[in-house]
């Protein structure tokens, strides 16, 4: 098993390395430098793309007239304070274990964070998937496990599968507090709000589930190119080139760069799971307020797994964010450097806003990789 694992890793690395070929990358960079006649502004929606761009230093390979701005595709960043406050309220209940993805524990709520509650004795456990949370529930039948379900269409089918598993195994101490969301409504709000962009670098892993067809309406209705993109340097640079060429040719449309993982129709099985278990609802997005039909809530037949139905909690209306401009950053209307708190009061060690907490947040990426600019 160990040898097989190592073989898998080595094979995987060779596969990834091909998409980090320096010669090809430099060639694409040189091609992009030839388009000098106009400015191009594209939005990368997914936090994974934001981090990849900074990690590999891709922005240093682009000409000055191509600008990338970050969008709301960081699931931690767009999770509202009230969600954190609810999770904290649950964590303070005796006999309760909170199971959460890692980054969420550092996000500030109104008066505390899950990390602080953990330090004060709450049972908060970091998990890598909903299945890990279900496993905790099975091993602790005398406790109530509340799994904080965040993420977009990439993670929602996994959560749906866990709910179905819980039903089958008759696990009755597992609950979900859902903040799952879907991307296209937020992308449309960004356009309607007037954020000035000429195309989207679309999330690769979301699209592996949904298919690229979910972006067709953006190209058709708003005339913006959408390129579904992988996460390696060559993927990202190729996608940017595709968007530039769409503009040059006057032919904005939805295209797939990430063909090794994404099709137009998507993963039908995963979509079925999602649609079986979840129903759309209006959802609060940090930085956007309520976006219609953008959140995923458990259907009524799964009410016994819905934390908000089984244990309703009342929380105070969260305070506004004060000087924090995470909202404007998530909408692509400001950059982290525009924030009065950035780099002074708000730093990764003591974040004010979620964008500085998350490993995929624009502010943390900016802080880690651009503070010399």
């Amino acid at each position, binding site marked *: *098993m*160990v040898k097989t*694992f*190592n073989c898998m*890793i*080595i094979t*995987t*690395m060779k596969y*990834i390395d091909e998409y*980090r070929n*320096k010669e090809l*990358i*430099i060639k694409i*960079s040189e091609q992009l430098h030839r388009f000098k006649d106009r400015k191009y502004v594209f939005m990368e929606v997914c936090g*994974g793309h934001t981090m990849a761009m*900074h*990690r*590999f*230093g*891709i*922005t*240093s*390979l682009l000409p000055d007239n191509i600008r990338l701005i970050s969008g709301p595709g960081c*699931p*931690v960043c767009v999770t509202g304070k009230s969600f954190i406050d609810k999770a904290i309220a649950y964590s303070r209940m005796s006999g309760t274990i909170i199971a959460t*993805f*890692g*980054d969420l*524990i*550092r996000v500030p709520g109104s008066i505390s964070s899950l990390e602080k509650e953990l330090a004060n004795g709450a049972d908060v456990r*970091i998990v*890598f998937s909903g299945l890990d949370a279900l496993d905790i529930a099975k091993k602790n039948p005398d406790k109530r496990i509340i799994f904080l379900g*965040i*993420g*977009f269409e*990439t*993670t929602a089918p996994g959560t749906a599968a866990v709910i179905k598993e819980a039903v089958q195994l008759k696990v009755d101490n597992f609950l979900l507090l859902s903040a799952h969301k879907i991307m296209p409504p937020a992308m449309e709000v960004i356009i309607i709000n007037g954020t000035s962009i000429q195309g989207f670098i679309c999330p690769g*892993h979301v699209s592996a589930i949904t298919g690229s067809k979910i972006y067709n309406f953006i190209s058709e209705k708003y005339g913006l190119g959408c390129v579904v993109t992988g996460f390696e*340097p060559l993927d990202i640079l190729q996608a940017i080139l595709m968007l530039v060429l769409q503009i040059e040719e006057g032919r904005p449309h939805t295209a797939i760069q990430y063909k090794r993982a994404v099709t137009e129709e998507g993963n039908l099985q995963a979509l079925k799971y999602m649609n079986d278990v979840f129903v759309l609802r209006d959802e609060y997005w940090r930085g956007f307020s309520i976006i219609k039909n953008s959140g995923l809530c458990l259907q009524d037949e799964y009410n016994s797994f819905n934390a908000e139905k089984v244990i309703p909690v009342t929380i105070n209306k969260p305070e506004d964010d004060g000087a924090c401009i995470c909202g404007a950053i998530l909408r692509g209307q400001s950059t982290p450097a525009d924030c009065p708190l950035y780099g002074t009061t708000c730093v*990764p*060690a003591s974040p004010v806003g979620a964008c500085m907490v998350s*490993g*995929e947040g624009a502010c943390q990426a900016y*802080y*880690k*990789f*651009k*503070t*010399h600019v």
Partner: protein
Amino acid sequence: MQELIRSLFVKKFGMNEILTDAAVVKLRKNKCAFTTDSFVVHPIFFPGGDIGKLAVCGTINDLAVTGAIPEFISVSFIIEEGLPFEDLEKIVDSMAEESKVAGVNIITGDTKVVEKGKCDKIFINTSGIGSLDHTYENISTGSEIKPGDKLIVNGKIGNHAIAVLGAREQLGFTSDILSDCASLNKLIHSVLESGAKIRFMRDLTRGGLAAVLNELSAITGFGIEISEDNIPIEEPVRGLCEILGFDPLYLANEGKVLFVAGENYHKKVLQVLKDHPLGLNSEMIGEIVEAHPGKVMLNTAIGGKRLLDMHDHIQLPRIC
């Protein structure tokens, strides 16, 4: 307790049978380096080592990177009631073996047993003292570093952190990645004795290579430029980091040291390192520069550039 001390610690560490309240020693030099560290790693046994080996190597390495010759170590145990004797004996054997390999004596110690739940199996503190030749006095402060000096590491990074994470059984994988836990005093001594001008050394423990580089640029006020292509990392470690979303530059090591070699000495340093079993995969990874003072610039493997910042929080696996 007296029986435990005599039959286990005194016997295994080769201590004087007559127990006194303090050990009396004579150091080789008038100036000495003195360090202390406590070890609380979980789990206490991991691939490639255990808490005991870690405790010995950690303190020996802290002395060695200041330029001192480690001579004597003290050890203090806090043991949770109920720890199996076999586990304690394994740890003590490990410490005795490592101190013998390193040529450093454990000469004094203390033991406390606490109630169940008051500590996590076993905590160990080691303190160490070493002799410091005046030639090497400035190594720990880096006061002689200047632009053009070269940065060298003695091998592949990230193994210890991945080995310990895997042993915690939280990540759902097993692998044959071993901790690099090792005493570096003899390796470092061979470099110093070669005549190569070493301006600074530090071991790459918590916070990894990135933390040490940032500390170095902060204390010197100079910039640092490193090349991602030249940083040695094992493929399985690189692959696991890709999957889990970790950056290997921030992962802890327990057998790696960063050397700052005076300009023109880097070839000699590499030659001496590569002749030693603990330096076979040594690489020059970068240099001290005048540009971007106080910042560390990484030339990425794809030809881009980015800052390498200090992480001031634990790395958390990605969500999606």
